[in-house]
């Protein structure tokens, strides 16, 4: 019941909010508080789920299963394991923060805005807990609609282009995945006599090698677009920059993780042989993305675009960790997913605060902000360092583990990836220097208000978590450990054992 509750609360809340009459905007405040309360309630449910989660078991927990379309073996089938647990909590955590960030930034059509954010939250939670491929696809596509509206209505000047680009680009990948899902169901019906979309049953399906390749590619393209993996990343800068702050936070914090989650949960375990064959290529793209994203981020004049490209770079680490197909790599990947959600969500939050105050995102417009907004500067510094991967903050654990795992698999990738770590320091610190350090160059920056109480409420949890995740990683590693081991086992054993094959060393744990 808990899992369903987690997404029903935001959805029901969204529908209820729709019914509140607010044509003239008089009830904006009430609606904002209601939406916030609902999102916090959903977050509370996710925390309860975490509390009740048994880290000692690698199976899916809190499973709920109700037949939905029996003729095709489609059930409403949800469950949670260590990997999805943390992503679910992340989603619950970031949504109230996103709502808080838009308290003053969004002035028109507040009701619809809140409705879309809550609907988006419901869809995101649904994606992470679905164990039925059909259900997963429904939530996956359903997530596109609120995001499209959020970017297209409340975004910045190029929002319509960005929204359509986001929607069509993502959909193009997902529909290919749809065909692959249908093919899987059909293959199961051929071998076992009945259609099914049950993920666990499909894990057990014996799929011939050539078919595996096509299906794997179809799934991976859909997820690669979402991650985003180079060269499928160009929707990201536009979507992130044009989205309103709350949209960017959720987009970077959660939506991108859905791509990597898809790789871990579906693409790699369902098609292990194809995964092994293509992993080097995918890792290559990931590593290119790491360096490329960093280099392009470095030369961006727009802060939001810089952070957007930094996402491309940081998520390359996640994909690299997944491709390593060993425990360290995968654990690092999942950890980095969480860390990136916190740090990049924080970055967008803080950049949003700057752009709310000055209505510009250009680095050249700022400078010396530490003199007028010291507390904001401090928070920004913490989040920046977390993003770079400084030890004692969360990014370090993630990047370290992924590189360790990747090194055990194939050291060459890590050599290039390491370059990315240096470059991320370059672009982040350079931006920090230009924006915050030095004297105030532009008069408009002299009297900007520092962090307000509401902004404190959204920034403090993020900073606290960034530090906590860096100093107490085991708290977050523990739940996922067994689940990750199970996934790795599945990916490693799904293909015949090879001692040495074409220079690729496959080391099992």
């Amino acid at each position, binding site marked *: 019941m808990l899992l369903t509750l987690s997404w029903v609360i935001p959805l029901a809340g969204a529908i209820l909010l729709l019914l509140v009459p607010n044509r003239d905007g008089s009830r904006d405040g009430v609606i904002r508080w209601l939406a916030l309360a609902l999102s916090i309630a959903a977050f509370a449910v996710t925390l309860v789920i975490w509390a009740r989660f048994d880290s000692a078991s690698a199976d899916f927990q809190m499973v709920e299963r109700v037949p939905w379309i029996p003729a095709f073996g489609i059930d409403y089938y949800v469950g949670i394991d260590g990997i999805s647990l943390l992503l679910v909590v992340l989603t619950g955590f970031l949504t109230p923060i996103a709502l808080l960030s838009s308290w003053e930034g969004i002035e028109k059509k507040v009701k619809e805005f809140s409705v879309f954010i809550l609907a988006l939250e419901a869809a995101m939670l649904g994606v992470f807990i679905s164990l039925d491929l059909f259900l997963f696809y429904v939530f996956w596509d359903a997530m596109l609609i609120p995001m499209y509206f959020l970017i297209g209505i409340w975004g910045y000047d190029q929002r319509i282009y960005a929204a359509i680009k986001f929607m*069509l680009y993502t959909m193009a990948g997902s529909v290919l995945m749809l065909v692959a899902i249908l093919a899987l169901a059909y293959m199961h019906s051929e071998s076992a006599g009945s259609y099914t979309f049950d993920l666990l049953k499909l894990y057990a399906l014996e799929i011939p090698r050539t078919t595996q390749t096509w299906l794997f590619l179809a799934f991976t393209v859909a997820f690669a677009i979402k991650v985003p993996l180079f*060269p499928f*990343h*160009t*929707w990201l800068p536009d979507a992130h920059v044009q989205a309103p702050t709350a949209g960017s936070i959720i987009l970077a914090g959660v939506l991108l993780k859905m791509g990597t989650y898809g790789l871990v949960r579906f693409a790699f375990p369902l098609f292990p042989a194809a995964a092994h064959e293509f992993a080097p290529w995918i890792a290559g793209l990931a590593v290119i993305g790491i360096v*490329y994203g960093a*280099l*392009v981020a*470095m*030369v961006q004049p727009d802060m939001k675009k810089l952070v957007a490209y930094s996402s491309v770079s940081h998520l390359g680490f996640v994909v690299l960790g997944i491709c390593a197909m060993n425990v360290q790599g995968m654990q690092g990947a999942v950890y980095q997913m969480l860390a990136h959600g916190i740090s990049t969500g924080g970055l967008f939050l803080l950049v949003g605060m700057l752009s709310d105050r000055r209505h510009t995102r250009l680095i050249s417009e700022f400078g010396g902000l530490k003199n007028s907004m010291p507390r904001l500067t401090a928070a920004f510094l913490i989040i920046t360092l977390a993003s770079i991967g400084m030890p004692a903050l969360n990014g370090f654990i993630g990047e370290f583990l992924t590189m360790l795992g990747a090194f055990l698999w194939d050291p060459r990738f890590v050599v290039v990836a390491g370059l990315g770590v240096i470059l991320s320091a370059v672009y982040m610190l350079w931006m920090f220097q230009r924006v915050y350090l030095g004297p105030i160059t532009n008069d408009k920056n002299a009297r900007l208000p520092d962090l307000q109480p509401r902004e404190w409420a959204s920034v403090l949890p993020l900073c606290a978590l960034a530090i906590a995740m860096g100093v107490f990683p085991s708290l977050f590693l523990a739940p996922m450990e067994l689940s990750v081991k199970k996934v790795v086992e599945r990916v490693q054993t799904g293909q015949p054992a090879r001692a040495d094959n074409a220079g690729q060393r496959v080391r099992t744990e």
Partner: protein
Amino acid sequence: MALALIVLAIGSVAAGWIGIPGNNVLADWLHPAFEAPRAAAAVAGKPAAAAEPAAAEGEAAAESHETLEFALMGVSTAIAVAGIWFAWMVWVKRRSIAENAAREFGWLHRLLLNKYYVDEIYDATIVQPIRLASQEGLWRGFDVKVIDGAVNGAAAIVNTSATVMRRLQTGSVKTYAGSVFVGVVAILAYYLWL
């Protein structure tokens, strides 16, 4: 600022004092970490007899080590003091030496003043090229023109096809009837001649 220096000075002396030869507190501190490999090597196959003279050798070596250490300490301290005296002489006592030297060996002075131009070299050979390459090449060139070009190009293809195909719809009934006719002929041809 001065306070910080005072604290650091005290700390430096203390840290150095710990390492005075003959009284070195830290020297053996990490030995337990190396005992294990040494013991393992001993167990692995080195004859026990070889370990004995090695230990004795260590003792004697330690003696000569101390002398060497004191000698090195003395020499480095002397050089440091000499340097301080020289700097005081040139820069405090008689500035003219410095100015004359700067004028006489102008290029050397500039080189040293600009830290061997290392920063400028870095900037010119590494930073600027990378920045320029990233900005013009990777970002404006590749990302915008090539990748986004492909994406927008796909959209443009659809748009162009749409505009072109739209013209097929001429509004003239004869054209429509003609297309029906074409379809019929195509289907029948397929069936009858293939």
